[in-house]
């Protein structure tokens, strides 16, 4: 009775650690050197935890400019008011820094111009950079 933990102990000793080693196993001596090496392809980064379900995952908004008719329904439903209407062009502009990735605009759009991608590694030092303003 007392030694019932032994099988479990062995199982855990030889099983793979649960830790996801994103982006590297240990901290490098220099981040900048490492980033250069990653760019050149000398080091590979460990991928993040896999997205559970690609169908329903809510990543960064993708905007199909051609399909949009400028009806403004997405602006009405957006709880964070992250979308702006460009009146003269009848197109919209989405600010990722304000967006909360709720997906309401995707559901509301009558033309299917909006969708949500799988991109979620979005950290940046500039909050109006090109990646964050979707036009």
């Amino acid at each position, binding site marked *: 009775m007392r030694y019932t933990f032994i099988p479990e102990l062995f199982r855990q000793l030889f099983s793979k650690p*649960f830790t996801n080693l994103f982006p590297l196993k240990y901290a490098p001596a220099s981040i900048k050197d490492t980033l250069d090496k990653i760019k050149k392809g000398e080091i590979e980064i460990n991928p993040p935890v896999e997205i559970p379900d690609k169908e329903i995952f809510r990543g960064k908004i993708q905007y199909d400019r051609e399909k949009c008719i400028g009806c403004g329904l997405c602006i009405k439903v957006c709880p964070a*008011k992250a979308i702006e209407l460009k009146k003269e062009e009848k197109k919209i502009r989405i600010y990722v*820094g*304000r967006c909360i990735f709720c997906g309401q605009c995707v559901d509301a759009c009558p033309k299917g111009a909006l969708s949500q991608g799988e991109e979620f590694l979005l950290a*940046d030092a500039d909050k109006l950079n090109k990646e964050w303003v979707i036009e």
Partner: protein
Amino acid sequence: MELGMKCFKRALWIYHMNTGSCNGCDIEIIAALTPRYDVERFGIRLVGTPRHADVIALTGPVTSDMVDKVKRVYEQTPDPKVVLVVGSCGISGGVFHESYHLEGPIDKIIPDGTFVYVPGCPPRPEAIIQGVIKAWEILEEVRGNGRTTQKTEGEKD
């Protein structure tokens, strides 16, 4: 002093402060510290006082009660420092953007800070780790201790 700098430049200590957030982003910061992501393997850890920190992780849109506290924490952190803004509400107000008692977003309270923004409501732990790496890169740039190509890997200069 010299030895001290060498020992500590590779470990990044973070002070985390909630400026009125819904707690979602705080939980994701904790998730990044759990064994699943385990950022402590990089020497990244949360510290209890801003005086020990290299990076301040701020969540939330800064309510009017928190304005002076945010300023105080920012001033207490030794230079060079980076402010890591976790979550959309800290970046721009997010869902709270029109609330009556908001003074934020954070870069309005600390106009001269260096920021790294992590969007999401809340962002995934990997995105927060990526933001910390961006902050680390900025700190290396400022401290001028980035490049080690001339030195050996073990740093015995």
